[in-house]
């Protein structure tokens, strides 16, 4: 299955992936309208220090502990992609607690959000990968 992988050697820590992610999932057609003057809730986050940076997002594990631990059945695996049903999420945040990668986060209104490889929006391919200026994030079979 194609997944998002990170080549930390080439990550510049520019944070463009975060903004592209937030925009792709905003449902808006204009980035300024979507993100200007508002708190931004990206599903990919840049971690690191002044020497190294890398983008952290859902690994779409083969045996996802978040799905197993979800008490409301909001998390599910569809064709290998771990997806969240926002209507079912009860904001218990167990998934955030158990995710070993820190890839699940609280979104707007406290509802849990996570990378769904842009299958639920109109981006077509992961927006973080599409917008990365240095191929530090790639979407490929490994």
């Amino acid at each position, binding site marked *: 299955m194609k997944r998002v992988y990170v080549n930390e*050697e*080439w990550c*510049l*820590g*520019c*944070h*463009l992936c*975060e*903004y*592209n992610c937030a*925009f792709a999932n905003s449902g808006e057609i204009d*980035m*300024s309208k979507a*993100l*200007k*003057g508002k708190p931004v809730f990206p599903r990919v986050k840049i971690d690191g220090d*002044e020497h190294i940076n890398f983008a952290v997002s859902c690994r779409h594990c083969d045996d996802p502990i978040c799905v197993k631990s979800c008490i409301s059945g909001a998390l599910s695996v569809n064709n290998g992609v771990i997806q969240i049903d926002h209507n079912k999420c009860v904001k218990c945040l167990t998934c955030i607690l158990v995710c070993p990668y820190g890839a699940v986060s609280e979104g707007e209104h406290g509802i849990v959000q996570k990378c769904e490889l842009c299958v639920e929006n109109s981006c077509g391919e992961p927006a973080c990968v599409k*917008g990365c*200026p*240095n*191929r*530090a994030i790639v979407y490929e079979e490994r």
Partner: protein
Amino acid sequence: MSVEFVNPEFEVIRNDNRCIACRVCERQCANEVHLFDPDRGIILSDESKCVNCQRCVSLCPTRALKIVKNECRLRENANWSDSTIKEIYKQANSGGVLLSSMGNPNPLPVYWDKILINASQVTNPSIDPLREPMETKVFLGKKPDKITRNEDGSLNCELLTQLELSMPVMFSAMSYGSISYNAHASLARASKELGIFYNTGEGGLHEDFYCYGENTIVQVASGRFGVYEDYLEAGAAVEIKMGQGAKPGIGGHLPGAKIVGDVSRTRMIPEGSDAISPAPHHDIYSIEDLRQLVFSLKEATEYKKPIIVKVAAVHNIAAIASGIARSGADIIAIDGFRGGTGAAPTRIRDNVGIPIELALASVDQRLRDEGIRNNVSLVVGGSIRSASDVVKAIALGADACYIATAAVLALGCHLCRTCQTGKCNWGIATQRPELVKRLNPDMGAERLVNLMTAWQHEIKELMGGMGINSIESLRGNRLMLRGIGLTEKELEILGISHAGE
């Protein structure tokens, strides 16, 4: 002191309706132009530091940025231009020589743009390169004067050592130090994939790139940095650098601040020491001396590698080239006055040397007149900007072209001409690790291969139009060229007729 203030050259225009304060511009600007103000949640700009490299413009996700020429000019004066006056201010402030980078930007004539190419109509067929084979392969090196036979009467098919290029373009010398590790990696990988050559420049060859030796030309310059047996052995050819188009007659100076880590090891000089290339080679004061170095290098490489002598295009270039052709060198590389540099004194860059078009035409003619054209191949550089420039150069008599500015543009250079600051935001002309990694060689090599592939297609199209199916048949074929808007003298030097003749 306010008299020291020089009005900034550029203005940073931010469209506040679009800016989402993502701070990408702030993080990407090594010149520290942009600054986030957390109190107001907006981004501020200090345009006095802006060099107009457009990194922020390219990466801004909402296209909120624009860099424009500062409209605040000094009073118009046809004699004392704004830039001339500002240079005076700068020198009155600093007391120093003005430094510049990349090629001469002044509006001097570009002869390529005044030369037009022929095409076949009616009486001779043009060739469609998509349907018929086209040959762009060239061999560089001394060619035999006549056919010789072995003792048993069979033809002697042994050629002297040659460089084989899949197309008549190579990446010219840019040293590791002046450009980054990743820029070199991109050039090396692309050359291997394309079947052409790149040139180490005078900074030695990084140990990681010895594996690309078959596609590497190693340079021996006046500073002799990084030159030793394995280095000479590693390359496919050895180039003696006598001069550079951007700064004929002077040497080079890579500041000690850039001689760090691998650059120091590759150049084989202590960290922090200035890398000074003297203006002349201290062992070359005549063609006879040059011949000694040519043959020293041939001895060292067991006569297996062609020797290139690179010179800047200067007034007496035809006579100089004639001397080099007799020195035992296999290839002459001539660099025109518009050639690029990582740093050169502004006055030298903008005022010394001659256009490559005129130099090439006069050298080719002189070597032909003297019957020694086959002694050497001619490679020309100094602002070859497109496939049509390549075709014109070949028709004027060149065997191949050297490109460097076009290559770094493919790597992302935006020609801001401030390489000398070492803060290249595109990761090319810098040694700062956080900037170097901005150039991913996977992307760099791919873009170089794309550029050369595109040029190769265009060269074939242009040749096909002329009814020529081999680049060898185009070389020196000046009948395929016509001048436009040129004087009798210029046409005479170029050896071409005027359009309509």
